[in-house]
């Protein structure tokens, strides 16, 4: 049975790590063994690694709108972000472009938002030389928080706008980062709540209805937001609004969003003169 609230997830995690509570709940839920569940999650992590390694800057999406930008982010760059953040930005673009170019990726929680988690996890594993085991644990943390978001609100752009896709991915990634850095369950909840608060109201307005503009670059925002929110929570900064209430607010905002801003390709950037011109040229 999925956790209905972050509060109940943290309550269950009083005597065990959050990732372990999520894993055990999955075993009960699907009637599976620990080994099977772990192997499946580890398989998703290895698929995220393969997707990044598979990147080819020469590839273009069928529409011609995406491809090649991650290569521009290689090397030292203008020196504004520092190498770690620059690598996160590059990893998000790389995954987004792989997705747009019909390569194999891991929906997390969706294909459109699939760049956020690998974008923070891959560079961090490299920098801190972390074992895969810690990253797989972090994916359980992300999945646990994501499950509450999906249960109380939504992870579909057609229902809740981009806040439900990149916003959810960012909140899941923020909680995962707190785990990796040795933070507490409460800190994970604050990181998740702040990340979701920061993306509240984000609309889903894909140009020509395609998962390309603005989706690829929004994954960058989701990844960097996750990083900052984990940093806030790990520094002891709390979300004034409890995580569950932020998730409920996200749902209410999604319900209030007009259909034009929920993945129909009829509002926002998709409805600009240039957005419409691109759609007509397809």
């Amino acid at each position, binding site marked *: 049975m999925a956790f209905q609230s972050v509060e109940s997830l943290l309550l269950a995690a009083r005597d065990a790590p959050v990732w372990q509570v999520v894993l055990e*709940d999955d075993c009960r839920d699907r009637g599976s063994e620990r080994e099977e569940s772990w192997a499946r999650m580890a398989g*998703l992590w290895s698929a995220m690694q393969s997707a990044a390694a598979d990147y080819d800057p020469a590839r273009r*999406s069928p529409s011609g709108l995406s491809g090649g930008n991650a290569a521009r982010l290689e090397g030292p760059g203008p020196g504004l972000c520092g190498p770690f953040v620059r690598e996160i930005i590059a990893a998000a673009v790389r995954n987004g472009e792989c997705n747009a170019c019909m390569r*194999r990726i891991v929906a997390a929680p969706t294909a459109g938002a699939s760049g956020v988690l690998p974008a923070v996890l891959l560079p961090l594993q490299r920098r801190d030389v972390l074992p895969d085991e810690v990253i797989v644990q972090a994916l*359980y943390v992300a999945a646990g928080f994501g499950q509450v978001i999906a249960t109380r609100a939504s992870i579909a752009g057609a229902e809740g706008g981009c806040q439900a896709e990149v916003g959810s991915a960012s909140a899941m990634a923020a909680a995962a980062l707190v785990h990796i850095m040795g933070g507490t369950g409460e800190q994970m909840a604050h990181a998740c709540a702040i990340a979701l608060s920061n993306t509240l109201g984000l609309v889903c307005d894909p140009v020509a209805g395609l998962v390309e503009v603005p989706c690829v670059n929004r994954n960058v925002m989701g990844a960097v937001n996750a990083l900052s929110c984990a940093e806030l929570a790990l520094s002891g900064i709390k979300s004034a609004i409890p995580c569950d209430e932020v998730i409920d607010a996200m749902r209410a905002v999604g319900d209030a969003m007009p259909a034009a801003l929920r993945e129909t390709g009829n509002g926002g950037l998709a409805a600009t003169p240039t957005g419409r011109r691109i759609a007509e040229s397809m």
Partner: protein
Amino acid sequence: MNIFDIMGPVMVGPSSSHTAGAARIGLITRRLLGVQPVAAQLLLHGSFAATGAGHGTDRALVAGLLGMGPDDPRLPASFELAQEAGLSLELGKTVLRGVHPNTVLLRVTAPDGRALEVVASSLGGGRVKVCSIDGLEASFTGDLPTLIIRNEDRPGHVAEVANLLSHHGVNIAAMQLYRDRRGGLAVMVIESDQPIPAALVDWLRRCPGIVRVVYLNMGEES
């Protein structure tokens, strides 16, 4: 939703609904036909028709018909692979009534000339639903072993099938009944917790009054 509905699936991009779901619909259709088709007509409806080309919906459907899953890296090359495999394709658009925006109508033909018509929808996150088979209503996801039985609309068939399943230790998870008209053709859609033995499926095919039996088990290779 379990945690692997949140994290995953591994899939070829760009869209879980328009690409991964479409591949799964193609694969279910192939399994329902029981063999790789030699001809396929794909008619896209709604959002599938509007943005399908940019999402590779058409290529994903064909990949599924060729037996590929949503994570098969050969998916983008499915049109070329279909040509090599002798599967002739006709692609178009249609308008269907009262269906999900991401819906497709597939008409496929087996090498022996048998035809099958499937209407199916992609619900998001790669999850799909078959809405009708050969014009008769049905509603199933393919997540569980599924038995689709077409029979004459007379008393006794439902009891007979349920009895046979229970004797083989098969637990029914969900069961739906439809018919085109009183005394006409009826359809039973049975989703079960256990796979259904091949011998039982053959037995059902020979029962008087049962017109057609299709067995779908997406967990098995075929």
